């Protein structure tokens, strides 16, 4: 389906492009110097084409598309030209643009939680777009059409849901509603700005599916803006890579992914953990950070991070031009050498060597043992009158075990109970039910003083390094704070801080600087240094890289691996990104609705998942390789994660289980009746009655 519509570069389409952007620059005036967010961007979009624009945060990818929509703040200075079907958009006023917006050019935004007006029903918000562009349409007709649109984007029970308010929809459903709004007037161009970034992988797969469907129905061209190379690989025809406000490489996805000509693209591709290869090889970090857009130095903006930069690169900024491969253009002085094969990806970004492991796998001591852990919350309803309407089974009897020097990956969708689990471990008090044993000591038997002492042994690194560090403290004090809690003398603290900074790859003399002077990746290193300062045995890592840009993720993951192996640390690594987990974890536990549904050694679980949920999770993860993506068979999960308050008899996964749907009725009864207990299947522990039939899934899809 996608192939038939894709633009074939060897036979350029006869039609004219529907969108032509020429030499677009966007500048935001600022008293500290103007921020040049977009610095001369040229691209065009053919009718029906799927263009993926990739870049890190601050690369100008969103700003350039907001300029197309005419939705930039009024203080932005926009130059160049944007032509839609030959009409210049930059010459139109808000009134003329608003006739085009929503009818011919539509947009899907990143955060579905805030993109819908909370006080109007979903139906009203879809109808609004219809009525604005068709004065002859009646309210009833708009309502009917809204129901139909909701059905198209896969909302179950649209007649009822059309009257729901946004807060009654899950994130995935809201994003479907956003797509319904976007396709309402049959647009010719849909701009989707990070439409799946805020969503879980299983929901991401569903939404991308809906977007493809929307494209088939409307025949619209799609511009997908994302930082996720995997998403582009699976869906786009053409890719455009942005860096520091310019396009640095464009071309058909197959060619750019297979043979990138710009070192930045090469670096990005090599730094992303790939589900197919993760764990078998080290990631290649792309060090440094994008340049400040307010004080640009001459030359190629990537030169300071580029391992093959030559003197010319620091003097002249390269043009985006072709280097022999039809349809591919790259902005690099050495692209000819790369295109001809003189410079290979491996020679530009060589893989770093792993460090020697201090503790061998096997019969090491148990650092953390969790048995039958349970945490239920009463559910209250009503802002004015509170009352209990049920129980949230956040964690419903789970077992975990981590040995010295090993990493346990805990994965699952948001709301599955991952955070509650680590909260319970870190709290170090007797759980509602079950047992938590740290270093052989049952936490329920700890005295107050022992508990404080034990906190040294268990430290945590949080998800968002921007939010988790006090912006008003110099980082030296941030790192030293755990030591003050444990009453370490001041002089020793300073020495330790310097040591820690060097350990995580920062300069010891950076201790006096404030957090805002550091990049996201550096801040996460500070977070890690703060956690390591008490010399812990177990580090709880709560989504430690998910808030970071892709290019810096690799550096942090490598650092974590090195620290574990050289210091003999154990990790409880919580993440939703299965590729990242595979890269670092020895064992993996897959969590669903407060239960562990599958547990096993990393390679066993990834190579041969036994639980249908694990299988669906794996297949939902996009792989940054178009060849792999296009040949993959997907196991799509239907619907959202059920509310943990729902009473589901038997297996809690059966409401979404793709295998359940294939079972004969007698077997389905068993799923509905008996709660599956963990049992050995192949080499994993699996909570499924019918995991032996897991292979039937492949033949069905």
């Amino acid at each position, binding site marked *: 389906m996608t192939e038939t519509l894709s633009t074939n570069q060897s036979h350029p389409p006869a039609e004219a492009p529907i969108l032509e952007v020429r030499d677009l620059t966007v500048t935001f005036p600022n008293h500290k110097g103007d921020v040049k967010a977009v610095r001369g961007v040229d691209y065009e979009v053919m009718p029906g084409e799927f263009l993926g624009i990739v870049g890190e945060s601050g690369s100008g990818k969103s700003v350039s598309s907001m300029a197309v929509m005419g*939705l930039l703040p009024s203080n932005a200075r926009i130059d160049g030209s944007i032509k839609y079907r030959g009409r210049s958009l930059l010459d139109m006023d808000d*009134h003329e643009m*608003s006739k085009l917006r929503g009818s011919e050019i539509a947009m899907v935004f990143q955060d579905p939680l805030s993109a819908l007006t*909370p*006080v109007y029903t979903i139906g009203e*918000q879809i109808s609004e777009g219809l009525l604005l562009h068709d004065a002859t349409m009646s309210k009833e007709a708009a309502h009917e059409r809204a129901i139909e649109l909701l059905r198209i984007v896969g909302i179950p029970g649209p007649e009822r849901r059309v009257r729901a308010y946004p807060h009654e929809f899950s994130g995935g459903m809201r994003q479907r509603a956003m797509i319904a709004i976007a396709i309402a007037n049959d647009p010719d161009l849909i701009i989707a700005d990070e439409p799946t970034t805020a969503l879980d992988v299983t929901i991401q797969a569903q939404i991308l599916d809906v977007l493809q469907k929307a494209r088939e129905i409307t025949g619209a061209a799609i511009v997908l803006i994302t930082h996720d190379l995997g998403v582009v690989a699976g869906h786009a025809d053409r890719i455009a890579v942005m860096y520091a406000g310019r396009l640095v490489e464009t071309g058909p996805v197959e060619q750019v992914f297979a043979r990138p000509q710009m070192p930045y693209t090469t670096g990005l591709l090599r730094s992303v953990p790939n589900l197919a290869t993760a764990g078998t090889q080290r990631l290649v970090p792309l060090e440094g950070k994008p340049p400040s857009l307010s004080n640009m130095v001459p030359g190629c903006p990537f030169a300071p991070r580029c391992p093959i930069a030559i003197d010319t690169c620091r003097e002249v900024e390269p043009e985006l031009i072709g280097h022999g491969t039809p349809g591919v253009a790259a902005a690099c002085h050495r692209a000819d050498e790369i295109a001809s094969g003189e410079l290979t990806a491996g020679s530009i970004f060589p893989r770093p060597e792993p460090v020697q492991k201090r503790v061998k796998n096997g019969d090491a001591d148990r650092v953390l043992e969790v048995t039958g852990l349970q945490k239920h919350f009463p559910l209250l309803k*009503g802002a*004015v009158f509170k009352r209990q309407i049920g129980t949230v089974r956040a964690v419903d009897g789970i077992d975990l075990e981590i040995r010295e020097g090993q990493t346990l990956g805990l994965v699952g969708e948001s709301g599955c109970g991952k955070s509650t689990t680590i909260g319970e471990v870190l709290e170090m008090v007797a759980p509602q039910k079950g047992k938590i044993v740290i270093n052989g000591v049952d936490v329920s038997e700890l005295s107050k003083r022992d508990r404080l002492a034990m906190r040294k042994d268990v430290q945590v690194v949080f998800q968002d390094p921007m939010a988790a560090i006090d912006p008003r403290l110099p980082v030296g004090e941030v790192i030293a704070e755990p030591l003050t809690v444990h009453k370490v003398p001041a002089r020793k603290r300073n020495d330790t801080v310097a040591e820690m900074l060097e350990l995580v790859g920062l300069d010891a003399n950076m201790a006096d600087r404030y957090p805002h002077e550091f990049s996201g990746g550096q801040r996460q290193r500070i977070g890690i240094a703060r956690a390591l300062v008490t010399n812990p045995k177990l580090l709880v890592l709560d989504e430690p890289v998910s808030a970071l840009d892709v290019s810096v993720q690799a550096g942090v993951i490598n650092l974590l691996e090195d620290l574990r192996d050289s210091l003999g640390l154990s990790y409880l690594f919580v993440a939703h990104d299965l590729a990242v987990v595979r890269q670092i974890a020895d064992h993996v536990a897959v969590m669903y609705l407060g239960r562990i549904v599958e547990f096993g050694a990393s390679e066993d679980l990834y190579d041969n998942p036994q639980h249908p949920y694990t299988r669906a999770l794996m297949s939902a993860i996009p792989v940054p390789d178009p060849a792999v993506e296009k040949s993959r068979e997907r196991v799509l999960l239907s619907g959202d994660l059920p509310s943990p308050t729902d009473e589901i008899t038997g297996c809690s996964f059966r409401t979404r289980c793709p295998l359940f749907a294939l079972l004969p009725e007698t077997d389905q009864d068993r799923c509905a009746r008996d709660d599956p207990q963990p049992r050995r299947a192949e080499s994993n522990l699996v909570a499924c009655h019918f995991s032996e039939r897991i292979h039937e899934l492949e033949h069905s899809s």
Partner: protein
Amino acid sequence: MGKYVLRRFVNYFILAFIATVTAYITSSAFMDPAARYRGQNPPLSESSIKSILDGHGTNPDVPILERTWTWLTKIFLHGDFSTTVHNNPVFQEIMTRASVSLKLLLIGSILGAILGVVLGVWGAVKQYKASDQTVTYASYLIIATPTFVIGVILMIIATGFNRLIGTSLIRFSGEYTADIPPGFFPWFTDQLSHMLLPTLALVLMGAATYSRYQRSVMLDVLASDFIRTARSKGRTRKTALVKHGVRVALIPMSTYFAYAFGTLVAGSAMLEVVFSWHGMGEFTINSILQSDINAAAGSVLFIAVLTLISSTLSEVLYAALDPRVRI
């Protein structure tokens, strides 16, 4: 739903009870009701003062808790809130005066809220433009000016205006003119000419504070993603702000409304004194000046009931505006 409303009213009853009893006990402990009789000419004997105080139930020789108990049993058994120092029943006095005050307060605070919301939204949309700056400075000027100064300034302006047109069109002494011809129309114009200045003062004060809050809430909303979504559907900036922005920006204001209304009762006391209105504000101030324990407790009950009613209203308003909190 009915059960929750009932529970809520029981809560309110308890709160009002605690507020009133606390007011009664503290004023009994610190006020000296005998003082106002001692300076009289001809002097009253100590025993006759005590017997007057016994009549009001405020004799300091009786232990406070005993007095409180007597006061409470009168209320609960006979609906009798005791008498003021002028021997008027407290309850009747409050009823007459409440209608005077509420006429002023309701109209003034509602108009003030509406004007404040409009100015706040306008200021947010025109942020840092001359019009926004003007409204901002004017608001701070009004907020910084004491109530009675505003009242007096308005009176000076009105005097000048009356002199200019040659008749006293605007009246600012008392609540009504004593000798107006009968009939609805003369009564109505008389009411208008008396209410204009105190209402204007209330509206100015209300609008000044409301507009500050509304402006900052609206600025948050302006940056919201859903405004961008509305524009991406094809709304112009202006209609997106009006249709999607204002409605959402009103939600947090409804909470503020309750508290503002409660403090307004206290604030309007000054206005009543300045404009010689015999309302609840004047009653409250006088009760304190004259060491009138029963009247003070009654005033506190009035303010408590008013605050609780307005907080209920604000919750109803909140639920009406915001579907996320509906039950």
